[in-house]
């Protein structure tokens, strides 16, 4: 794996301030994601999935170990570099959408570009291009409060990819969606992954969502417990395999 987008070595995260009882959520964790790969991360509640994603997206800092994203060692960065890194290299889709309700869908989507000082013409083009991909062109002038959950998540996805980040991360992005909307979103992520060769890292506890991935990492006790490769399996068969793995994994 020469072209790794994410490279994690000996990652450790211990919570708890001085005086409190420390809790080690991640311990000597190693893995990498290749360019253009669609990777899922699964694990029981409290196993450290969100913690891992927070380390990758620089929202939190590891206690030990290296995290290299698209060639940048994120553990060495400081304040403004961190913000810029998040703004440029990472696209993030959250479970609760995280849209700004005071801005229209269009303005929400344009925000990452505005932050980089993109010219307004280029910006409009980019916004309309992603809106087309995600079929939300007719929603652009609406405010988040006027959108359904699924529509909101598609707007959020558009915001996450409009600036062509090197990796798209999602923490349970389908968690708040009904099955139809969830399916639509996962299809969209697959399309984006395939057509734009954007790497995707998806945290989920739902086997159905996970079955859209090419590779699944199972976290247990703060470490990668096992790994599942889809290979040439079709999605339905892979889904069965995930279920089986979960059954044995949780024992």
């Amino acid at each position, binding site marked *: 794996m020469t072209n790794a987008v994410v490279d994690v070595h000996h990652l450790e995260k211990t919570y708890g301030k001085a005086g409190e009882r420390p809790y080690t959520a991640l311990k000597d964790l190693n893995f990498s994601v290749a360019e253009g790969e669609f990777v899922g991360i699964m694990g029981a509640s409290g196993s450290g999935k969100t913690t891992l994603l927070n380390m990758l997206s620089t929202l939190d800092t590891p206690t030990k170990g290296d995290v290299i994203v698209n060639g940048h060692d994120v553990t060495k960065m400081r304040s403004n570099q961190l913000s810029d890194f998040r703004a440029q290299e990472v696209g993030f889709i959250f479970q609760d959408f995280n849209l700004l309700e005071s801005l229209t869908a269009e*303005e929400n989507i344009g925000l990452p570009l505005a932050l980089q000082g993109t010219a307004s013409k280029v910006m409009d083009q980019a916004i309309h291009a992603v809106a087309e991909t995600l079929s939300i062109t007719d929603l652009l002038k609406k405010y*988040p409060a006027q959108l359904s959950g699924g529509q909101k998540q598609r707007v959020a996805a558009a915001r996450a990819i409009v600036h062509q980040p090197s990796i798209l991360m999602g923490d349970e992005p389908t968690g708040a969606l009904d099955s139809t909307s969830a399916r639509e979103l996962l299809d969209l992520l697959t399309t984006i992954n395939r057509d734009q060769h954007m790497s995707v890292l998806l945290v989920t506890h739902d086997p159905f969502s996970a079955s859209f991935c090419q590779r699944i990492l199972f976290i247990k006790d703060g470490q990668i417990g096992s790994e599942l490769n889809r290979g040439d399996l079709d999605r339905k068969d892979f889904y069965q395999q995930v279920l089986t793995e979960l059954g044995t994994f949780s024992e």
Partner: protein
Amino acid sequence: MLTKLALAGVKNRRRDYLVLLAGLTMSAAIFYMFANLATNQAFIKANAVIKSASVVFGFGAVLLALITIVYIMYANSFLLSMRQHDYGLFMMLGAKRRRVGQLVFLETLILGTIATVIGIVLGIVVSKFLVGFLLDQLGLHLSHLASFYLPAILFTAVLYIGLFILASLFNLTRLMRTTVQQLLHADQQANQPKSRPLRQFIGGLVGIGLLAVGYWAMAAIEHLQMTAIPLALVTITLGTYLLFHAAVLAVIRGLRHTKWAKKHLNGFLMGQLNFRVHDYTRMLTIVSLLFAMALGAITVGSGYHRQMPMTADSLGAYTVAVHDANAHQKHLINQLHVAHQATYTQKVQGKTTYYNAAELKTQPFQQIKSLQSSPNGKPQFYTESLAKFKKDGVTQLDFIMLNPNKLGDFAAPKIVSAAAFKQLKGTTYRVTTVRVKHMADDMAVLKQLDRSEQHRFPQASTQLTIGTYQSFEMMNGIFGGLEFIGYFLGIAFLAMLASCLMFKILSGAPGDLRRYTMLNKIGVRRGLMRASLAKEIGILFAIPGIMGVIDVLFGLQMFKPLMAKPMSPYLGIGTTFAIFIGLYVIYYVITLGLYLNLVMPREVVRD
């Protein structure tokens, strides 16, 4: 059970409740202090010598009551915004509407009662110290000023508790009408203003028209009398609201589609403002009124404070006149910044005072020109030849009053030749007249000098001495009350303004915390977030500030009749404005710091 839950909710938001309680308490304290002054008949009779002063007191109280009503409405909406989520949750969990209603009613009323009681106690305590301190600083003496006055206590209590009962009822009906869903998501609802450009344009025009009426009413106070103030108050309030609403929306709409709005967080800023414009315009209107009243009151107060000595300077040819100055008085005179000093020998026979012509020739008596003939409004002095002086100068009051009887019985003074003066029998006095450069610079010494002269000549029936310093003391007696009210109201309004903004800010913080956390996640630099917040809060401060200054510039017209020439409500307002705006900017910086602390996401610590 429900009560327990409600109490837990209160506990969780201790800080917000504390701010709310502090604000309401302060408002009640201020109201009590003013009601104490305004309703204390003994005090008013003793101090408000002229009728207009007591009118001002009355209006001050009405104004404060109106502001209080608005203020309580505002605080109440803050309370409701804080609680509605909890109440919604209770109802969703199956609590009966009626039961929750009772809870809301009681909570509002209990909070209000506590605030009122503490506020009145605080008002009594502060009256005792602050009022005394303020009077001391201003060199004023207001008699019959008691800190404890039962009618004022009752007045404050009735008004406040009454208002809180109304507020409780309002909350109750509000709660009964809203759906659980709306209560739960009230803080996330986007009430995007409908854009109706024509309507807003007309609204803006009507607003400007109303403002014009209000400004005219203030200028025409002599003509309109009592109706001027309420008329101005209503028209300016409505006008400001309409103008702000139209202007803010128009500016946002204009800017939102420009290239500028697509850079950095500018679009977010515009969105924020647009999102909260209804909420903001109401608050901005109130704050601009408070700003105007605080600044106006302080300007008028300091106007009197500065201008009374100045006016007194132009009232006569000498500041003090001392008969047979003793060593102590000579010592005091030496400390003055003397502009002109002269000493004349007097001989008194019966009621007539005689002067030596030779003395008046070598040292002519200085007279003051009438202000009308002075080009720059500054007093000018002149002397005339002895012959001329004998004809008309001797009839000038300034000269006549130099007789040792002071204001007692006297006849016209006579000027005789040196030889004749020598022959005269009668008591001999030597009177020294001193004119200082600026009375304001020598206040303390002049006061001592005046007191010692009064002490030495107690026969001066009315306890008055002569000279412009005495005139100043008389003016101080008349206008001092106004000066005091000015400062007092100014400080009161400023305090209310501060806590109004504080409510606004705290009620916006939870939502903003969420927004800025999101921005942080998508990679907005901290500096950019800070700048955006500084701009947003800066706009909230700047708009009412600018409007307030304009209001005051027009509003000072109202005081023209009370500050007759050579005083003017506009004289020297630059310094007052600068100090006030300086304070306002400091308050802005503090508020911003506080807000940044509340909403900025924690920085990721690296070790």
